[in-house]
């Protein structure tokens, strides 16, 4: 919980650092803040699970792992914002402060023990995201994306809030433990309000993690937002969202598994199909990644539908693998597009941007390949084990093998569009001339790729 307090203070501090003449200090300062928060996150690692702030927040090793993934991804993404402050009119301090504040929201979502905290966390994170999406003020698409995101997000928030109200109406409490008690003791006379409320809260959360049919905002927003924040959204929001859904379902509603599993299963299948199949047709790498992120939401939902003892571990591992691969993929895109946008403003983010990358910069090509392989779930990468563990939970549940079949078919489709990137990288001829990558980028990319390979070789390392 220390990390929440620290991040809030750091956010304000960074805000005021912005008045400094030199803007160069902001990035290192923000990185330092996140690093400190990361360390503070583990203060209670060896303690028993505990409740904080009058039972508002909860902390155990699982929530700490999720927070660690969020903070690690944030660190990597923020490191990629180098060159961000070069623009005269930019207000980097505010963006960095918003990033820090949004992390507070994410950690609150991960460890909520009270539905109020869930709502607060979701809102802090979402509002930050609306602003960051529109941060490219002169770009119409960015503005459009922000407005769309805001409108739809507000709608989803309303539905979620309505659901929370219904849950309160049914149980008389916002507290997860109390709700669990209600579900446990009244197993034969549970109010319909509770079912409706749960469904609406779930819908609100599923919107945030872009599950079909609530995914429509994703491609437009991912496409319109500046690439750094697309990376931020697709890693941190997703991880926090899934941690929250897991916490909600496992914390209060395990008793009525028979009610919600089928709804979740249907949404999972729809998400997998829509995400993977639509991704096939995309020409823009960013849009492809948006659909791919929808499909990965589907895999994570798969494990939530199974809801076995292994589920939390599977989600943690998958989120980590997915976040690392996504950060490196977007990192490479930024490095390539930065160069390209100097020459022409069009199509800088299409697959063609990667043509001939294998010759222009072998490092970038390698990083991109590993990341794509990991996303596709090819062995010796972390993504493989992520999928492996996820599928393992389904197998453990036993009666959901049909979902597994769909998921495997869909991951076969996934291989197609991920390999399209690799093919463009190595087999197609594009521009020539070496591509220079700033050292900062290089470090981030090497770190994330190394971790991907390391966890791919030794998945046990994370436990």
């Amino acid at each position, binding site marked *: 919980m220390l990390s929440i307090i620290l991040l809030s203070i750091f956010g304000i501090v960074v805000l*005021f650092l912005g008045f400094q003449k030199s803007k160069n200090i902001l990035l290192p300062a923000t990185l330092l803040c996140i690093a400190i928060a990361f360390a503070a996150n583990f203060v209670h690692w060896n303690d028993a699970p505990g409740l904080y702030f009058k039972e508002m927040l909860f902390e155990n090793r699982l929530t700490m792992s999720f927070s660690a993934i969020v903070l690690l991804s944030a660190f990597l993404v923020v490191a990629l914002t180098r060159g961000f402050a070069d623009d005269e009119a930019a207000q980097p301090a505010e963006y960095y402060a918003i990033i820090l504040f949004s992390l507070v929201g994410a950690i609150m979502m991960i460890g909520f023990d009270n539905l109020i905290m869930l709502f607060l966390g979701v809102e802090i994170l979402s509002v930050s995201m609306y602003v960051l999406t529109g941060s490219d003020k002169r770009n119409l698409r960015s503005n459009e994306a922000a407005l769309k995101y805001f409108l739809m997000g507000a709608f989803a928030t309303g539905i979620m809030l309505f659901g929370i109200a219904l849950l309160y109406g049914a149980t008389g409490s916002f507290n997860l433990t109390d709700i669990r008690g209600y579900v446990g003791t009244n197993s034969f006379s549970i109010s319909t309000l509770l079912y409706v409320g749960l469904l609406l809260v779930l819908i609100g959360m599923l919107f945030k993690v872009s599950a079909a049919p609530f995914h429509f905002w994703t491609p437009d927003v991912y496409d319109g937002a500046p690439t750094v924040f697309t990376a931020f959204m697709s890693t941190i929001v997703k991880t926090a969202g899934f941690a929250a859904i897991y916490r909600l379902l496992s914390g209060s509603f395990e008793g009525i598994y028979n009610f919600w599993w089928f709804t979740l299963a249907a949404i999972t299948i729809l998400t997998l199909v829509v995400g993977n199949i639509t991704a096939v047709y995309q020409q823009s790498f960013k849009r492809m990644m948006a659909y791919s992120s929808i499909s990965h939401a589907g895999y994570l939902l798969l494990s939530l539908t199974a809801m076995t003892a292994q589920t939390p571990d599977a989600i943690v591992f998958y989120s980590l693998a997915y976040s690392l691969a996504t950060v490196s993929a977007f990192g490479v895109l930024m490095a390539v597009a930065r160069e390209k946008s100097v020459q022409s403003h069009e199509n800088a983010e299409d697959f063609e941007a990667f043509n001939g990358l294998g010759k222009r910069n072998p490092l970038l090509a390698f990083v991109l390949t590993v990341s794509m392989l990991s996303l596709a779930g090819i062995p010796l990468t972390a993504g493989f084990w992520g999928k492996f563990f996820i599928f393992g939970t389904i197998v453990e549940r036993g009666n959901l093998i049909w979902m597994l079949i769909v998921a495997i078919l869909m991951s076969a489709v996934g291989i197609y569009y991920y390999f399209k990137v690799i093919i463009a990288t190595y087999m197609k001829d594009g521009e020539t001339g070496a591509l220079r990558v700033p050292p900062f980028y290089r470090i981030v990319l090497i770190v994330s790729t190394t971790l991907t390979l390391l966890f791919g070789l030794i998945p046990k390392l994370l436990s």
Partner: protein
Amino acid sequence: MNYLPSDYLPIIVQLVLALGFIVITMLVTHNIGPKRNSKLKDEPFECGIEAKGDARTPISIKYFLVAILFVLFDVEVIFMYPWAVNFKKLGLFGFGEMILFMGLLLAGFYYIIKKGVLEWEK
């Protein structure tokens, strides 16, 4: 306390009456009133003065900023009331909390001034 569906009957009657009144009035006026359109009648009416230009004139962003900041601080200050009512009961802890809250608020206020948002002309 258990409500039976029949207990809601008065509400439904009320709802039907309200909706019915609106719908019927609209239908009736549309159908029995005469319709004579002319150029003059279609013009917007503004206190007898002739309408000029576009209604969507850009307004300085500063209006919005000041307005939104006003709402923000206004709402925050409302938190003072419940605190003042329970001042004795909350004691020193409550006082500390409120100081922290006000501190954060002031930090924000300071930031706004520093940023120059409240300077109308620059």
